[in-house]
């Protein structure tokens, strides 16, 4: 953990992604969108 504060918006989106990943229902396009989101947040 970097200790960098996470904004509520990023937190909520991250939780949403975790849920979608765990659901096992992510499509290839979803995986790509997740990658883009992670890069944008890095």
């Amino acid at each position, binding site marked *: 953990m970097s200790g960098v504060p996470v904004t509520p918006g990023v937190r909520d989106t991250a939780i*949403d992604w975790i*849920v979608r990943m*765990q*659901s*096992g229902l992510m499509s290839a396009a979803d995986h790509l969108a997740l990658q883009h989101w992670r890069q944008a947040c890095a």
Partner: protein
Amino acid sequence: MSHDRIVSPVEQLYANHHSWLRGWLHRRLGHSADAEDLAHDTFIRVLRSKHEAHELRQPMAFLATIANGLLINRWRRQAIERAYLEALAARPVAQEPSPEERYLTIETLLQLDSLLFGLSTRVRQIFFLSQLDGLTYPQIAAQLGLSVAQVQRAMGKAFGVCYASCFE
């Protein structure tokens, strides 16, 4: 020379109401040693409380509220321990965990329960089916007669609480 010392408000509260509180707890627990323990824990909470003991208008109600919270925690803990031991009893003896493993598992379950206590029973049930039983979201949805989207929303709530507990 007088040897009278100043009695603190908490000491006064203890002197006036400890016996009553012990009896109140005894009626609910049916066991005097447990009642004594919880009465003791209640006064520990009073000492740590931000409320000033001498300012209490209804000291018995105050004590009963704290004691009732402790009672509920105790019952929850017992229910979790009982459920865990029942689950263990259903497993083969060869898989029986060591006392240390048992303790750690129960502590983990208690922490999880405490963490998720503010959530609805349904959300907790979904979270446990996913994280402890390893069911997929479609399986949980089928078992509980829900849509996958409802399961996802519930998991989002539960993860939100986990996040808040760890980082906020």
